[in-house]
């Protein structure tokens, strides 16, 4: 009995902790700046985000994002400003709804094609194709059956 109570309390505590952790909370300006600069590519670096780069250009971009957040601009508006200047290239993860988004779709299409190919191959091995007997073979079989029936009769 006591064991059940302990387990129930533990489960309740776990559920309460999960609910508390997942509760919607007000995103702070600093969190927004971090989020936006994490997605932006540093133009003078090799695969680094604006947030992670120590270059002067990245610093200027962070300053601009900070100013825009302070002015009350939405994330979409700030991203649109950078997109207007640099194109989709400026984002480390290309938007799905763009030509660059093909990088997301191609692996999925390749996987689907591979699955279709493998499934097709497996089916063809499961049901081996049997060629229809030729008239000569049919005649020979009939003759054999007739011979066996005669022998039994």
């Amino acid at each position, binding site marked *: 009995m006591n064991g059940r109570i302990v387990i129930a309390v533990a489960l309740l505590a776990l559920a309460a902790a999960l609910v508390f952790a997942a509760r919607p909370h007000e995103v702070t300006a600093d969190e927004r700046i971090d989020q936006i600069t994490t997605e932006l590519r540093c133009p003078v670096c090799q695969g680094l985000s604006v947030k992670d780069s120590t270059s002067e*250009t990245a610093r200027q971009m962070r300053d601009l994002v900070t100013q825009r957040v302070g002015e009350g601009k939405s994330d979409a508006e700030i991203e649109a400003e950078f997109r207007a200047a640099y194109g989709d290239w400026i984002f480390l993860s290309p938007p799905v709804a763009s030509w660059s988004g093909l990088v997301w779709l191609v692996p999925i299409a390749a996987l689907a094609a591979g699955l279709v190919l493998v499934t097709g191959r497996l089916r063809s091995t499961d049901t081996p194709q049997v060629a229809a007997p030729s008239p000569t073979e049919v005649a020979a079989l009939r003759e054999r059956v007739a011979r066996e029936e005669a022998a039994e009769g």
Partner: protein
Amino acid sequence: MLGRVVRIAVVVAILALVVTLALAFRRDPHDIRTGTIGKPAPVFTLDRLDGSGKVTLADLSGKVVVMNFFASWCLPCTQENPALVRVYERYRASDVVMLGVNYQESRDNGLAYVARMGMGWTTVADDDGRVALSYGVFGPPETFFIGPDGVIAGRHIGPIDEETLVNAIETLRARAVR
């Protein structure tokens, strides 16, 4: 039947890849088409490097503008400068305006470089880099060609030569006459 479809799909995919690569390798690596090409040039108000006032995009309206981002610490900028000087001398009395935008540098260093390199055209300071960011600059040297209509007609990334400068300018002038 299925195998045939897959084989055709693979051939089509390889052909598409070959065509894409062929087209990509034919492109001029200096002519990178980012978001600003074909769109109105972002407006700006910048201090002249020599402190004699400000320059705005509106001041240059109706003219062919060659906007060159440069810095004294940029070696390719030094390499391209003779071409810029020759083109400036060629068009200085015309409807063509050259504007040098000093990039990520102190004004003193920029001004000393301008004097040393004989840059007679207007030079301005982009202290906080905002103008460079609004034009989508990757790093100096970069040159933008803005038509009399205020639209960015082209950009050149890296050191530019005289022929490329003249061709771009003449194309814009011819378009303005039409």
